[in-house]
């Protein structure tokens, strides 16, 4: 430690600049869309419970599957699927944007604002497409 202090001047000379995290303020758009990404992530974690319950039902006897299928196709669960679908589409679109942000691109205020609208649009489009395929076109309503 003493030795470190002695060479203080030497080591401090070429220090990198801090990223100024303490004064960096996220824009309203990136803040709101980022927290929504967290919330949809937690919702999807709850969806994992449904997925594993269904998988275990598939692996069990025919009678057990019928009972689980009955529970899983109730109106209450259809509401849950709609929520999960929207959460999934949002988390997918926003997650990809987070990956782009990680590369250091699109962080300017105007860009973040634009991409937020892109994420919202992508969510709506994806949810409509998947929703149509999963709920309406195939005979999955039963």
């Amino acid at each position: 430690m003493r030795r470190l202090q002695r060479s203080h001047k030497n080591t401090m000379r070429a220090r990198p600049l801090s990223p100024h995290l303490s004064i960096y303020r996220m824009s309203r758009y990136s803040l709101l869309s980022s927290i929504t990404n967290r919330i949809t992530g937690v919702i999807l974690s709850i969806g994992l419970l449904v997925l594993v319950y269904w998988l275990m039902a598939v692996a069990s006897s025919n009678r057990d599957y019928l009972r689980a299928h009955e529970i899983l196709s109730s109106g209450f669960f259809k509401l849950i699927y709609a929520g999960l679908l929207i959460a999934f589409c949002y988390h997918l679109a926003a997650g990809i944007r987070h990956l782009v942000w990680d590369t250091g691109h699109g962080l300017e205020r105007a860009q973040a604002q634009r991409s937020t609208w892109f994420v919202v649009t992508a969510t709506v489009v994806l949810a409509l497409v998947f929703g149509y395929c999963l709920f309406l076109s195939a005979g999955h309503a039963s």
Partner: protein
Amino acid sequence: MKSLRSPLGTVVGLGSAKSGVHHWWVQRLTSIALVPLTIWFAVSLASLPALDHVTVIAWMAQSWTALLLVLLVLVATYHSQLGVRVVVEDYVHNTGLRTVTLVALTFLHAFLAVAGVFAILKVAFGGAS
């Protein structure tokens, strides 16, 4: 960009004292893997003619389906565990409660991963009828 490493760090060469960017990195890695896996799952499920037991078992018993489902369950539970952990660390301020919540969530995720993989393999190896 200049190296973020101090001259002392360069000489000693020990790297981070703790896990460094491991959590951040694995979170990204799993998220990239989940993009094709989840889309495959949604499309594959949507293209099934019905969701009765016989159809679902025939679908799940296919090698590629079983393989991708196992990957999906493992990567999704890992990704979920990493994400939920950060949420708890950020919002639960009471240390005791936070630790208990994290332990419970870790156990839950381990349980979900093992149960999911077990169920898929059981069907894939013809154990369900």
